[in-house]
């Protein structure tokens, strides 16, 4: 439980984070502190290590070096109960990863019921509440296969919220969506931001990042190249690489 050299008050504290796949070093010593309630958007070109960085925050990737401290838990400590830590961190994936053999409500109820957080009736009530929040109450008993992409991603967000996490991670949550469905998903994320959820959002939606982010991190080639307020990043980029990137995507 001891948060070692983490900055006081930081919800997430990353120190000298390194990650290699074989001989390929993808993350080259990241230093990040994220405060409670902060919304951080991570941008950067493909292969810059954004998603890997995000996946290290709930240890879906093994960490090669450095430390990641979340809610006071040191994820690199082999004794830490990862399952307990992950209940505090919701994650939303690019390809939704809904469980196709379960109905929408069963997808949402799975974790609360299996982890004995709630009984079935309680979990269902809570699940319906979350579905209402993402505007999909009428789809509770539908199979994921019958939903549109935007609906699937909203269900995935509801599922990630079912354990009442204090942190939400979004891994290119709108990249796989048809353009007309991006808005409905971004609206849900926007609402969460407004409620004060701590969030790390890997995204290609620059307008969205500019709108909701408290801070924007630009990554390139496994390092944090530049970070700052949306105004500073989008309005007054310092690094040539960021200027180059923004010139291409904006």
């Amino acid at each position, binding site marked *: 439980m001891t948060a070692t050299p983490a900055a006081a008050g930081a919800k997430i504290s990353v120190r000298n984070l390194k990650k290699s796949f074989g001989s390929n070093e993808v993350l080259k010593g990241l230093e990040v502190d994220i405060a409670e309630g902060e919304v951080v958007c991570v941008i950067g070109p493909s292969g810059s290590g954004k998603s890997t960085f995000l996946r290290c925050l*709930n240890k*879906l990737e093994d960490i090669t070096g450095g430390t990641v401290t979340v809610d006071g838990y040191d994820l690199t400590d082999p004794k830490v109960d990862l*399952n*307990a*830590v*992950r*209940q505090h*961190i*919701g*994650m939303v*994936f690019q*390809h939704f*990863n*809904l*469980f*196709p*053999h379960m109905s929408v409500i069963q997808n949402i109820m*799975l*974790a609360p019921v*299996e*982890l004995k957080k709630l009984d079935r009736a309680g979990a269902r009530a809570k699940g319906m509440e979350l579905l209402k929040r993402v505007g999909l109450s009428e789809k509770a008993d539908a199979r994921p296969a019958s939903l549109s992409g935007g609906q699937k991603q909203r269900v*995935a967000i509801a*599922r*990630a919220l*079912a*354990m009442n996490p204090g942190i939400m991670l979004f891994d290119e949550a709108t990249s796989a969506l048809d353009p007309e469905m991006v808005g409905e998903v971004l609206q849900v994320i926007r609402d969460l931001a407004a409620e004060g959820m701590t969030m790390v959002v890997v995204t290609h939606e620059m307008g969205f990042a500019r709108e909701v982010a408290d801070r924007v991190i630009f990554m390139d080639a496994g390092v944090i190249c530049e970070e700052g307020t949306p105004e500073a990043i989008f309005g007054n980029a310092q690094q040539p690489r960021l200027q180059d990137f923004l010139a291409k995507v904006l």
Partner: protein
Amino acid sequence: MNIYRLATRRGRAALGATLTVMALLLGAGSASAAVMPAALHQGLAPAAVGAVAPAAASDAKGKTFAIATDTTFAPFEFRNGSGDLVGIDMDLLRAIADNQGFKVDIKSLGFDAALQALQSNQVQGVIAGMSITDKRKLIFDFSNPYFDSGVQMAVAKSNDAIKTYADLKGKTVAVKRGSEGETFANSIKDKYGFTVKALADSATMYDDVKAGNSVAVFDDYPVLAYGVSQNNGLKIVTPKEQGSSYGFAVNKGQNADLLAAFDAGLANLKASGQYQKILDKYLAAPETAKQTSFFELLANSFPALMKGLGMTLLATALSLIIALVLGIVFGFLKVSESRVLRIIASIYVEIFRGTPLLVQAFFFYFGLPQLTGRPLDVLTAGVITLSLNAGAYMTEIVRGGIQSVDPGQLEASRSLGLGYVTSMRRVVVPQAVKIMTPSFINQFVITLKDTSLLAVIGFAELTYQGQQIYASNFRTGETLLIVAALYFIVIFILTQLSNALDRKFNK
């Protein structure tokens, strides 16, 4: 190695070239089927009669002995239409057991298998039309001879060209592997210039001649005479060669009480005339059996085939249940994070996928008991073989099924805080099962068909019952058609059922 060589069929070494010449002289004109029983009767050693000692019998009294025999060596042992083991050996053994007050549990294994079963102490005795030879005497104790045999040549009924050994020049003759017929044929093949082709059993041999692949067969005369009487399509063209005597065997130095009881019973049966009656039943003045219609064959063989089908389904069901458990366990080891566990599972799969099922069956039935000293019954050995073999394939099906589920499914579940086991159980496995089901059904069909290979270790399943039937009626083609049809019907019904269940539960 030496032991195995000794275990080959009826008296390979019994006849040499010199004996052949003597036999030709002695045996001239003695072997028409009609005079056989009388000749036999005279040929039997009378020594045993004096040795009748009721005291010896009391040692075996009340006991039950497992006795192994050949699967089909008509008229010594074969199955009649209703699937019961009958024949000279069988009737004699049962009559002796009755006479001496012991019980027998007869195991129909095949000749080589019977000898191996005896050596590995799975059975106490063997009666299988076995010649008493000096080599066999090194490892077995024999009873007094109960039958005198000899080799004759037969050709297709329609063949009038081959009448003597000299007519065989440049031709091929069929013999039974390891039989006295083979020894004899090999001893004269250079002199007469023919080629010898060794086959597994009498029925195959006769079919080979009828198909024209071979022109003649050399076989023990009672076997040939019986076959001819059953319309096997052959005729006997040469007189009987001097042959060896058949005896009942136990392991050397073991089961002396059983051996003594056999000798005593044999002497009693001879004295009472029952012995002669048994021989006459199979050999005296054989009337030519009427060829029955296909439907009569079907009706007559149906009870035995159904019994076989039952055993086939039993072995399939047991094997699949065990194989499923093995497949799940090793399949999960194969996708586990531990290198050691993955290697263990891989070794298991490679061994059982990389060796023939037949070799595995032989190993578990014959090899393992010799190594451990603990006999396995044929159903157990068969189920172990099929389970381990099918389990290896199931392992690959399970591994493939799990790995074909999108890794994002496991990640999503783990990211919710669910543990590995819960995630597998609730998220990955239900999806994997759906993917695996068609492969499972396929493996199920393969295992069902693979049970037919267990016929070679004497497991009385469907194919084995079919072999038994055509071995005694020589109607190979029709019988195999019936057997194949039964497999087809059963597999068709079961696959349709499985597919319906798959559709119902794996929507």
